[in-house]
């Protein structure tokens, strides 16, 4: 059941859908590049893991999802949030630790969530999300609302027991769940070729009785197609799928990582494989969109991200009144 890298056609997507996808990917990229810059100035506290380079995964998958559907993310969560429709103003403010943030400054980069959007949270625990997604999928199944639930996780997380258990549980409960293994080649400094005992993570699908597929993660269309199949199968009661998405992250594991463990694979990826470039070439080449249309999106996105930083910096920090609230719905 394990597939291989595909070159999917762009045919079935409308121009609007294509523009949306591009806007999402561009928003993620700009967001991350900007956070990278801001982090360097010292204004952003804590640990920050950037998703740049991986935009096609979140975007290709989430383009099939609506408000019935839920996703769980990882420590590298900004892209998943944006693709699932979380407001970038709130996200940027959250990363700066401000009261106007998505989580009122209490969560930070590793915990951005928006349950109203079906975004169940970034997660500071590697492998934290897959069990939760089994539950979201179960809820949809029992309620019969047609919803699906998607767990994004990394190659490192594919070795975590919580992830592996979840694959089995989703399979035997026949849940409308999708497991997206984002294989960017590394868990921190550790190569996935070393840490994952199989050639491909998708090979593990068979061990848990579900279809597994590998896609080129730089290619939005490849991800989109594979996710479309998986989502359709899940919505129809056909059970879970494991999708392995292969690509490279552009920045270090987290901001501050010196990356001594790898050479210049990033330069090659940025130059020759970059999802935004590939997308642009494909849709302009096929005549579906023009460079002007895409340039305009670039402009709009740049403006929005810049505005989010200005607003985030100007926003107030949470204060003493906020420390003790939000632990319980009710207590005592």
């Amino acid at each position: 059941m394990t597939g291989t890298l595909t070159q999917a056609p762009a045919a079935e997507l409308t121009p609007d859908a294509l523009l949306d996808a591009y806007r999402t990917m561009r928003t993620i990229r700009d967001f991350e590049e900007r956070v990278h810059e801001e982090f360097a100035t010292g204004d952003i506290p804590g640990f920050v893991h950037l998703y740049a380079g991986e935009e096609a995964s979140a975007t290709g998958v989430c383009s099939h999802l609506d408000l019935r559907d839920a996703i769980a993310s990882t420590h590298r969560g900004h892209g998943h949030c944006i693709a699932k429709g979380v407001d970038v103003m709130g996200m940027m403010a959250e990363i700066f630790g401000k009261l106007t943030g998505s989580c009122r400054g209490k969560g930070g980069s590793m915990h951005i969530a928006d349950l109203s959007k079906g975004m169940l949270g970034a997660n500071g625990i590697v492998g934290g999300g897959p069990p939760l997604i089994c539950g979201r999928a179960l809820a949809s199944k029992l309620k019969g609302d047609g919803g699906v639930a998607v767990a994004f996780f990394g190659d490192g997380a594919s070795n975590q027991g919580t992830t592996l258990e979840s694959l089995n549980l989703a399979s035997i409960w026949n849940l409308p769940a999708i497991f997206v293994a984002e294989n960017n080649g590394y868990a921190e400094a550790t190569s996935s070729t070393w840490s994952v005992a199989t050639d491909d993570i998708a090979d593990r699908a068979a061990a848990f009785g579900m279809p597994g597929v590998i896609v080129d993660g730089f290619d939005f269309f490849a991800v989109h197609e594979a996710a479309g199949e998986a989502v359709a199968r899940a919505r129809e009661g056909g059970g879970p799928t494991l999708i392995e998405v292969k690509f490279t992250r552009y920045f270090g594991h987290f901001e501050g990582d010196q990356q001594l463990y790898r050479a210049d694979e990033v330069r090659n990826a940025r130059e020759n494989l970059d999802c935004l470039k590939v997308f642009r070439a494909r849709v302009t080449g096929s005549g579906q969109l023009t460079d002007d249309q895409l340039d305009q999106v670039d402009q709009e996105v740049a403006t929005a991200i810049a505005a989010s930083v200005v607003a985030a910096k100007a926003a107030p920090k949470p204060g003493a009144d906020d420390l003790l609230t939000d632990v319980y719905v009710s207590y005592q």
Partner: protein
Amino acid sequence: MARSITYREAINEAIAQEMARDERVIVMGEDNAGGAGSPGEDDAWGGVLGVTKGLYGKFPGRVLDTPISESAFVGAAVGAATGGLRPVVELMFIDFLGVCFDQIFNQAAKFRYMFGGKAVTPVVVRTMWGAGLRAAAQHSQSLLSVVTHIPGLKVVAPSNPYDAKGLLIQAIRDDDPVIFAEHKMLYDVSGDVPEESYAIPFGEANIVREGSNGHADVTIVAIGRMVNTALEAADELASSGIQVEIIDPRTTSPLDTDTILESVENTGRLVVVDESNPRCSLATDIAALAAQEVFGSLRAPIQQVTGPHTPVPFADSLEDLFIPDTTRVAAAVKTVVDHVG
């Protein structure tokens, strides 16, 4: 209408009534129905000690067996709770916390705070605790202090059938994650329990024994099965003229500090009885509370009567020594009463 039923039956009834009342309530756990995929009867087990027996037949499709994957299925309950269900998930023994603790304390417990107050996670984790069944070191622990320590969790430890029913109904209706700790040695204990549904609010201790004529010499705070041990000790002590007031906190988080402190202010003497291991325990928690808040009223050292700093031993002879008994409780009470300040 109250009848006498067991703690086990009271728990079963609470779940059944809530399932009938609210279709979002579901049950899951290892063999909670029992026999998934097996050739014999469905509902073959109803949980390892039969607590959920019969629910499967009443609520088909809403009682789910699980594989042995506590992280995945406890986490699934947590995730389902964020998705509009109200799962009651069974962690068979609290000792198994070690294979799923993350989903409980880093996920369920922290969502609301981490997400700025925007998450609601109404999940109940039912779990069996306590020593006495000769089940040895990995099936006899208390660990209540471990979950009580965690902000975001509520922790319930009923000591009798009436409380078990009312507190479990409250737990299921509660919008926060609740650890519902059932003492394994109480399952067969009977008591009067109303047939109709009722909820006992969290954070309200039960004064299970008052002194005599409004007077008591000592306050005992006891947890779970130790409430009965304290009651027995109190009877003995009464016959030698010592009056004991016994408080059962019922929920250890939130803790009804007012009731405890008020009693200690009256008696000036506190003994905490908790079968758990002693370090950083509920016993130290309650003792430290009094030593900080009502120091001026204290007339004697605060005595903790707990299990020793050892795993729970297997042999009956040793396990009986491990668990605090009436003799040890009575001795502690006498120590504080005899204390000359």
